[in-house]
């Protein structure tokens, strides 16, 4: 069986939805910028790319029209490079890497682009048009339960207190601020230019180009007291607040996934080896607990003991579910999200899996760790986990 390797991976900075640096940047343009950067860095002949798998959680409107193919074309890759949009909500960006790796492992190809992109500024969380099924409403309305309410259910079921959630949130911000100040994300972030257009006093459009190269979400000035003052947003009297939930964000991330044959032929140096990936379903009412089901399966598939995983990028959809997952699987907190997570850095839905993979691989390289994992919960009750071996 061919092994699958990641030779290059880059992400954009993650910016705040609606008012951040990418609020007016289309997700297909942003994705194209990152693809262009990764292909350029790798030095490969773009004609050898066999497909581009791009994750997107709400593939419609600005993210519609098969955004994968659009991004490939917009990136200036040869028209012979195809594109496929993949949606598994919050795991989409990891799913594409796993799918590309599995294509290689099954002998179906040698060179793929895989990643994700999402503009939550432009396409709302549930898409522009939601239409519920009468059958579901009659029999299983919980299939449509909002994410925040599932986080409340997790907090109730796994007895995660409000204080624990706020402390976790503060912990996330502190780690992210330290990482940003220490320049730890510099290698993984590809600076992206955005053009801002405004009318001047004379009614003439003035264009300004700014470069976005830093994550925007982390707050140095927050505290448990400040977080404790926020009101629950999803449930009256609940514990899940805007402060202990992931931020709505815009961003993109892309990896170059290749086979061992391709590596040797093109004399590329691998960053990491893809070890395995699994997805599992859970009760949609406690969606956030998904990783508890997925992680053991991924470890088994990869043939790696959970205890030997030194670094985990656990998507912080909500503090309640992150804490519950860590408690249930007895994960070592020092190994989880050492540079912060989605609560502080943001969660651009379909891009998140690839974005976390970038942080994981550069983090393992920096800290000389062998095995690492990206994991997340997924809307409608699923969990995903992917394991990588650091070769850098």
């Amino acid at each position: 069986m061919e092994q699958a390797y990641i030779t290059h991976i880059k992400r954009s900075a993650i910016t705040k939805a609606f008012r951040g640096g990418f609020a007016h940047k289309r997700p297909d343009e942003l994705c194209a910028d990152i693809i262009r950067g990764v292909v350029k860095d790798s030095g490969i002949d773009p004609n050898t790319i066999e497909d581009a798998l791009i994750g997107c959680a709400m593939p419609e409107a600005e993210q519609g029209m098969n955004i994968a193919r659009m991004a490939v074309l917009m990136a200036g890759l040869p028209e012979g490079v195809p594109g496929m949009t993949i949606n598994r909500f919050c795991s989409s960006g990891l799913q594409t890497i796993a799918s590309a790796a599995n294509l290689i492992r099954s002998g179906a190809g040698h060179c793929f682009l895989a990643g994700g992109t999402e503009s939550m500024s432009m396409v709302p969380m549930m898409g522009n048009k939601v239409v519920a099924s009468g059958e579901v409403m009659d029999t299983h309305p919980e299939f449509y339960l909002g994410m925040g309410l599932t986080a409340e259910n997790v907090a109730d079921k796994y007895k995660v207190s409000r204080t624990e959630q706020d402390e976790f949130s503060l912990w996330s911000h502190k780690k992210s601020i330290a990482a940003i100040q220490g320049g730890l994300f510099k290698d993984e972030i590809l600076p992206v230019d955005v053009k801002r257009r405004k009318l001047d006093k004379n009614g003439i459009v003035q264009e300004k180009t700014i470069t976005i190269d830093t994550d925007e979400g982390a707050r140095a000035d927050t505290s448990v007291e400040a977080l404790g003052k926020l009101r629950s947003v999803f449930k009256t009297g609940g514990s899940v607040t805007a402060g202990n939930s992931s931020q709505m964000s815009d961003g993109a991330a892309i990896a170059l996934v290749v086979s061992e044959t391709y590596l040797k032929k093109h004399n590329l140096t691998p960053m990491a080896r893809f070890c395995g990936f699994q997805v599992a379903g859970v009760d949609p009412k406690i969606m956030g607990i998904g990783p508890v089901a997925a992680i053991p399966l991924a470890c088994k598939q990869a043939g790696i003991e959970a205890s030997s995983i030194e670094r985990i990028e656990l998507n912080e959809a909500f503090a309640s579910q992150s804490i519950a997952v860590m408690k249930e699987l007895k994960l070592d907190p020092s190994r989880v999200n050492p540079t912060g997570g989605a609560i502080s850095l943001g969660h651009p839905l379909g891009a998140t899996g690839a974005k976390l993979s970038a942080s994981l691989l550069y983090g393992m390289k920096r800290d000389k760790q062998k095995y690492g994992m990206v994991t997340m919960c997924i809307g409608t009750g699923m969990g995903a986990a992917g394991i990588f071996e650091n070769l850098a």
Partner: protein
Amino acid sequence: MTIKIRRAAVLGAGVMGAQIAAHLAAAGVRTHLLDLGGDDVPEDKKLKKALKGFAPRSWRAVRALGVLQKLKPSPLMTSSVLEKIIPGNFEDDMSVLADCDWVIEAIVERIDIKKKLFAEVTKYARPGVPITSNTSGIPVGDIAKTLPEEFQTSFFGVHFFNPPRYMKLVEVIPQGRTNINLLNDLSAWIEFRLGKGIVHATDSINFIGNRIGVLGCNTTIHHAERLGINIEEVDALTGKLWDRPKSATFRTLDVVGLDTYQLVAKNVYDKITDDPYHDFFKLPSWMEGLIEDGHFGSKSGCGTYKRVKEKGKSVIHAYRPETKTWVPAERPQIPWLKDALKQKTTFAKLSYAMDQNDKYAELVRLSLADVVNYSTLLVNDIASSSPKAIDDAMRWGYGWKWGPLELYQGIGTEKVHAVMQDLGRPTADWLGKGTQFYKPSPNDPQWERTGLQDEWQCDLKKYKKIESPLYHVKLPKKHDTEDPRYLMGNDSISLMDIGDGIACLTFHSKMNSLNTAMNEFIPKAIAHVNTHFEGMVVANDGQHFSAGADLSQILTYINDKNWDAIDKLIRTFQGAMQLLKFAPFPVVGCPHGMVLGGGCEVSLHTHHRVAASETYAGLVEMGVGLIPAAGGCKEFALRAYDQAALGDSDPFKFLQKMFMLIGLAKVSASGDDAVEAGIYGPETSITMNRDRQTAHAKLKVIEMLQLGFRPKLPRTGVKVLGNPGVQTFRMMLYNMLEGRQLSEHDAHIATQVAKVLCGGEIDGGSRISEQQFLNLERVNFVELCKTQKTKERIEHMLKKGKPLRN
């Protein structure tokens, strides 16, 4: 009126200045709000954010715009009013005065500072443009002297009352050199465009409102102290009994601020030492003690009352001067008060009170006698001998239903005069015990029909004819078959001839709530208008347009399980609304005040609305466990589908907005807000002047006729969302229910709303008629009536006057 105010400047961005600017802006005037400039911008994140797009040196004015957003009750009719206010500062922006048609000074009450400011104003303002001061404490003549001569003729006082959006009173005060034509011109503009009531005052200390008002309040306080009547008892005796605001005496003072009140009173005490009631302008020592201790009222947390948390509950405590402590407020035990309040008119209530024989009655007698006596003593000096000016000032500035001289005459001059003589105070030498200030008398039915016709001029001792303004259409507040304009009617509703071929359908039931008798009358009225008139206005002179359908009637049927009667009642109501909508002549509604539930549905079915700027409209049926069923859901749905069709968009988003309006029982914060929020459609115009509203509506009917009015026809093929829409609403409600944001019954009612808005649980894209929407409304309304929780909600509302969330 020849004056044109397109652009104005308010100098001074304090609470009054900023609110005046907001009111001008709401009236469509581009308004500059200027205050001191400075580079000393405070370290405040929100302020810095707000300053974006403005000169940082104007931070005081920008900050004032932020204050406007927080004040309660809101001075902003809609948030978009803020966009029309241009903040600036005295140092950099005074040149804008050259473009302003009115300059309003509202800065600190210091003549030296005002002088300095006016020196700058006159460098830029155009000569002849009115320059006015909102001063309440400094004689306007003194300020005028600080201006160059060429500006003195255009300078006078224009004194708004706080809060300027809601208080009708504006006192206009000339000084010796004021050009009276200019003053009258601006006064007419303020009355017409800002909807205010103008009172002409002389340049005396505190002018009219705050002179009489403070005296009235202080005499009550002094008498109460002497008679040993406590704070709660004073408030029980000086609110509802007089048909004044419920906050009566002490609660009002707490809201105003005891310190502010003291300053206003002290102004008279210090400056008019020969005032006949001089000593009454000094506050009792216990109130001065409260002020010294920083207990100013609401703004400092406590005053004559304070709110105390006891066992998790909020309890009101009242001050006891004798022990200098606050004790739990007592329910006043005034033996005759309940019976007095049963009397039908204010005059009868007060007369009943005056006939009693205890200390409480004595307080009423003395308070009344003093305020009347003081008014008669001062009317020549402060109000140019016009009793109407004094009564208008007290009604419009203090929220009294009747001014002191109207009370004097309404209760009976001999009765009040006798108490005045017992006071042993100086009295006006011209005042006889039979002096009648007004013809007709305020207690005469003719007053209701036509309003004031003749006013007694206290100096000339003769009557002056009051010309009823052309715009004034006065409507009866009860069934008055003697009114020459009366055409037909019953106890709750009448049809009146308001001239020029236009009829007026007017409500006069309790709170103008809608009952079956009214709905059965509407078809007859429409038939009559169709035969004998050209068009119709739906208006009334009540405090509120309508508080909604008569719930007690519905509850009776529920208790009898008479579902057929409810079905018939709704059919009748729906039929009446459809007849309004499809009338072959123009029908224009005049919503004002509360326009709730069924009342709102009436206004939704007129062809056009001339809404008062103070209109609080909404479909609030959710609160009583019901859905709008007289075409309210239908009208909202039709508008949503039409709006979606315009942009070839998904109707769900438009329906969702309507769904939320009904689901949250949204009530508009103003007429403009009713349009912005989507309660009213674009066929709505807003008038700031409530007095002219009916006349404006009449003009609108005439205009519609002149422009070739085309009657509407029922819709037959509205493409609806059907079941897919209903299910999506159910999904939203399920999530809200899981999030404990609503009760099971809320969700159940809201589901019925969704069913109507979506045209029922039918195939998406089906076409249905307007009547089918009404059928859905009616069926679901009746079904909700059958639920125990709806019954409980209705009972609770009727008993407690507020909604029950069960």
